[in-house]
């Protein structure tokens, strides 16, 4: 914001901290950026990046590539090296749109609070375990938010996000969630056709994220257990939620999206399954460097309309690979991600210059912020996260898991305390191996 607006922004903040009434929230909406944008023609939006990995840096780059004046003014991360790398790359990519003075670089577990306080829009891109905490705080401070998927790693986390999402709505905060397929023209066009009945009623879907897996960060001498897990976060559930949550959420989210009309769900929430059962394990990726997560999950989800969604995700190299979603209807078949329909209403998305969906999701969010359009993807993001976590609950336990039990589960997998010397919730045995969930005995709800 320009100097003359600073007092306004500050007032807004202090105002928020002292009131939580609906009247106050409505006022916040009236006073937020879009009003100044209209008055000034080119109002500057200040951005803080929380979580400076490759994806966070990418998201900041996209936010800084939206129309209008935008500036990155604060950054927060657990690690100095990650932040410095990110800052260099962003300066390279965006030049003077990146203005992060030393005093606005915050390091550590509580860094997010300070960075959030300085910005109009915050990007939440740490490992997903922290998302509920960061989202809650950003909403509390009255900021617009872009948060990466998934938005939690356990049911209590999902509920915190749902509660904060309701609060964000009251405060007229705009919230984007990094499920970018919702901003990808090919998906939007395909969904429109499905909703128009191009394949009839949906009987079943198949969704996959079968691939070779991701990076490993080896343990370094002198690391505390907390630091090691934070670096090698993909393999620890409190941070990642297992790959069924961290990656496969994209495909499960598409299933919820495709079934939304048939299940008569609100688009803000999307459809969600009633129950799930499945199987999974660690067949190949058994080393201690792979922490506690499985290398494959296969889940069958059941929806109220009777539709079934068959889901697979696998992190094993040398096997059949596919990242895709497929819908089978009474009148035809749709390769949702391939944007193709076969059957009586045969169709294929014409080739053309597609726009980067990662850019589009930021263009859409910032447009909503500047022009005060309704924008809150948090609830559906939370439901899709819960769908993924429910799948994990099913494969870890081997039991049938009901949606309401899963969502209301009181089992928290998060640490009690966030400190480099604190104990993470899972610890290695004498040989360095971590306990792994065992179907038939692991309790999940």
């Amino acid at each position, binding site marked *: 914001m320009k100097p003359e607006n600073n007092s306004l922004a500050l007032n807004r903040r202090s105002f928020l901290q002292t009131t939580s009434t609906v009247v106050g929230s409505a006022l916040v909406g009236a006073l937020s950026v879009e009003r100044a944008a209209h008055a000034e023609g080119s109002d500057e939006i200040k951005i803080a990046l929380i979580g400076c990995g*490759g994806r966070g840096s*990418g998201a900041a780059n996209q936010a800084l590539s939206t129309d209008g004046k935008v500036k990155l003014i604060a950054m927060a991360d657990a690690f100095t090296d990650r932040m410095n790398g*990110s800052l260099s*790359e962003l300066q390279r990519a965006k030049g003077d749109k990146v203005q992060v003075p030393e005093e606005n670089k915050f390091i550590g577990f509580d860094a997010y609070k300070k960075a959030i306080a300085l910005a109009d829009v915050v990007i939440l891109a740490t490992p997903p375990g922290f998302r509920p905490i960061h989202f809650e705080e950003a909403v509390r401070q009255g900021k617009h938010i872009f948060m990466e998927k998934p938005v939690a790693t356990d049911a209590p986390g999902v509920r915190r996000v749902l509660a904060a999402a309701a609060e964000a709505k009251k405060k007229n905060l705009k919230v984007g969630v990094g499920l*970018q397929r919702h901003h990808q023209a090919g998906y939007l066009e395909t969904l429109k056709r499905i909703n128009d009945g191009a394949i009839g009623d949906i009987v079943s879907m198949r969704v996959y994220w079968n*691939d*070779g897996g991701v990076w490993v960060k080896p343990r370094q001498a002198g690391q505390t257990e907390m630091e090691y897990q934070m670096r090698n976060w993909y393999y620890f559930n409190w941070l990642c939620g297992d790959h069924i949550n961290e990656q496969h959420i994209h495909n499960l989210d598409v299933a919820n999206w495709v079934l939304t009309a048939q299940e008569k769900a609100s688009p803000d929430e999307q459809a969600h399954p009633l129950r799930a059962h499945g199987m999974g394990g660690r067949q190949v990726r058994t080393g201690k460097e792979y922490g506690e997560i499985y290398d494959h999950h296969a889940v069958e989800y059941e929806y109220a309309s009777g539709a079934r969604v068959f889901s697979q995700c696998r992190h094993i190299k040398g096997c059949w690979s596919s*990242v895709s979603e497929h819908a089978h209807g009474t009148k035809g078949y749709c390769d949702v991600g391939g944007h193709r329909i076969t059957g009586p209403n045969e169709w294929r998305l014409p080739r053309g210059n597609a726009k980067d969906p990662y850019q589009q999701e930021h263009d859409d969010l910032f447009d909503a912020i500047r022009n005060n359009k309704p924008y809150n993807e948090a609830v559906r993001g939370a439901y899709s996260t819960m769908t993924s976590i429910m799948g994990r609950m099913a494969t870890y336990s081997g039991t049938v898991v009901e949606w309401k039990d899963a969502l209301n589960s009181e089992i928290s997998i998060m640490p009690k305390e966030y400190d480099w010397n604190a104990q993470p919730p899972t610890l290695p045995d004498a040989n360095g191996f971590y306990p792994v969930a065992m179907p038939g005995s692991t309790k999940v709800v």
Partner: protein
Amino acid sequence: MNRFYMMAVTAAAATTVFAADKVDFAKDVKPILENYCLRCHGDEKPKGGLVLKTKADAVRGGDNGTALTPGNPAKSPIYTLTILPPTDDNVMPPKGEKLKKEQTDTLKKWIEAGADWPTSEVLIARKLEVASSSAADDMANVMEVHKTILAKLSEKAQADMKPYSEKIIGSEVSFEMVPIPAGEFVMGSPESEKGRKPDEGPQHKVEIEPFWMGKCEITWNEYELFQFSEEEKKRRNQRNSPAELHAQADAVARPTTPYVEMSFGMGKDGYPAISMTQHAANTYCKWLSANTGHYYRLPTEAEWEYACRAGTKTAYSWGNDIADAKDYAWFVDNSEGKYQKVGKKKPNPWGLYDMHGNVAEWTLDQYEPEAYKQFVNATAKEPWIRATKPYPHVVRGGSWDDDPEKLRSAARRFSDKSWKMQDPQLPKSIWYMTDAQFLGFRIIRPLKVPPPEELQKVWKSGVERD
């Protein structure tokens, strides 16, 4: 003869075409400063109190006064210290590789012209790979690989060149190579050719030396051995392949693990590898050379067209009739929206499969739309336009997603940043092009083995970072 790595042109004036007439800060000057100066003259403890992040910093100077006097190179230490003899105590940069004449000339020209440096350009240090110790190790490895290649080389002349099949050591995977004789051909297309684009002309003569070319595009079977080093190690351990056979290949950099599935569900076994950057394809060639002891690399654009035409002058190597495309190529009309197994259609007259379709193929050259103009009335010998920037590079041959006119022998296309669009990270990967699902490559093996320095140049462009 000035073989291969520089353009050797019989017409004298032609080589100036690509010399920069006007120095551009972002393109020409910034890389020099970021590669050679910013590590010591950046944010943290700047040497001599001199910061070179912005023009204002440079003009303000450090402990020894200004570093930059726009318009006056002689009063700009940013230039004068770079042209001192390498043995001088004050030469810049003080350690590692010194600036080349072209680079100091660029600085001089830029300063003479007023040292244009937009305020939006805030410089940061880039890792200079050539000067780092890992680069020294890298070069040492190339020297070793070069020795191995020379020791193994049994073919001395074109007459010795036969088709062969080569097994990737430590695996069951093999690939086939077909000899391509030396010769001269007319590169580009006539204006009368249907679907022709202006960058395909003017037509000109090109001389090519003999090489073998991959009968087929590189498949996932081959590529994944390179892509996933741990998997490759497992496989060779199962086969008790001796570790010493793999030492040189293991010294070659390998791709990072991709976050998304890179075959996009189109199949792996027998299908072409796709979505790799040119850097990844180059590095594959280096790795494969180290593994097999034969010198492999990407073809130049000219070598590719020569091999594709296989002596023909028509739009396609089968003639001019689009109706025949279905017999020779996978393209939009018959591919069913995906790539297909390699080697299933008819080959071209020299026995090469899928040159016109299935997946488009990387070449070594930077794309320059007017590249051919310099060769008018000349014969280009082994032309190669070496890259000075990450985009655009030339890609040749049609793909499963293309209309027939893009399948033509002379059709050129070029890489673009949008080919990495869906890479959500910053920095974007130097290994993967998430949005180039139509793009693969095939390798060649030149009969002549150049010195190690030239091997390194074809295997590492130096401009792989976006």
